[in-house]
């Protein structure tokens, strides 16, 4: 693996409990995060067979009407290494650096005042999909 994907550390650990608040098509996640980290997204596309839906954090409408319902990272995706047999299921967590931006495109610490959100894929955590998930 390291020969092909030197930028990934694969952690073969029992999967921890994840709290997932909304689904989003994996294709949409990869499309939006692709430009922020093309190398990692290429690894995901070429190295894994991923299930079609990811889960993600949802921004509540009561917190920000304009962004209400939007999905932001971390994204949780299930799949397996391409070419491996059924049963070798993995949970991939796509961690992102998140910046909320106000109308002037300045970073804001107040989510309610944000008019957009920018995300950058920073790293991927890979674990064996466990029964405790």
């Amino acid at each position: 693996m390291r020969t092909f994907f030197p930028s990934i550390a694969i952690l073969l650990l029992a999967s921890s409990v994840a709290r997932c608040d909304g689904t989003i098509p994996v294709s949409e996640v990869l499309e939006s995060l692709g430009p922020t980290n093309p190398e990692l997204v290429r690894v995901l596309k070429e190295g894994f067979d991923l299930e079609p839906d990811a889960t993600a954090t949802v921004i509540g409408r009561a917190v920000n009407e304009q962004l209400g319902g939007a999905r932001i990272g971390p994204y949780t995706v299930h799949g397996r290494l391409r070419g491996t047999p059924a049963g070798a299921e993995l949970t991939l967590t796509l961690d992102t650096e998140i910046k909320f931006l106000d109308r002037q495109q300045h970073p804001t610490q107040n989510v309610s005042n944000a008019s957009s959100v920018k995300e950058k894929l920073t790293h991927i955590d890979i674990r064996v999909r466990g029964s405790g998930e």
Partner: protein
Amino acid sequence: MPGAITFTSKTNAFNDQSPIIPTASRVQTGKVLLRLDLDITVARDNQPVPQVTIAFSATGASSTVTQLAPTDAQGKAVLRLETREFGTNVTITSTNPDFAQSRFDRTFTEAWYESTFLVTAYNCCAEDDFSGPLVEGGAVGRHKQDFLFGGRGVIMQGTGRASDGRFIRITNPRAIRWNPNFAGVANPEAAVFAFANGVQGAFGAVRENHSVAVDPTVVPARNHISVTGLGDRWADDTGGAIRDYHVDNFVGAGQAALRQWHNISAATVKYLGP
């Protein structure tokens, strides 16, 4: 001798004779646009009348009816009705006195959205899924810190279900500041929580496997739809990020509810009215 026109609803792409809601159309004054194409046959003295275009009118202030091309050699043509009259009778008649006796009546009680919908699911957070230490939450008492203040907790989602089954909401989200890079709340002491009766959507209370968030310019607020693979749903919620042909299905509280979601990612949707 007066002529006669026979009207027959065309079978649509969904294999029935319901109207469709065109993809480019949007809700106006709380009503969707219905489009129904009809085959007409124009005859006089039992003989087809070719190469004629007949003027029609339809009841309902929003209704238009257009013959798409002159009749062919068999006296046949296609008539297009567009209306926002749902649940009330629409009558098409010819304004040409020769054909005034012919009419088409229909009350529309369902229609297919022409476009396929993206289907996603969402829940509200449940305290049982969290593991942090207990902290003081003011009027709502002590709860897990990450349930109240975490990035996937009440403070980001707006509402969550506590371990005792009661719902808690943040009353002043505008007062909350986050640390850079979204690393926790910078001023947790400013947060004011209160108990809630449940999860409140934009248009009404949100209930699991009943409510969906939609774009209200596509599905009118509180209206009834049927989503293939899901069943009947009501448009109780929306959000600025739920745009166009997207149904976000509310599955209830906690991760367990979302885990049961069965990866429907696209579906046809039937509109069933207010």
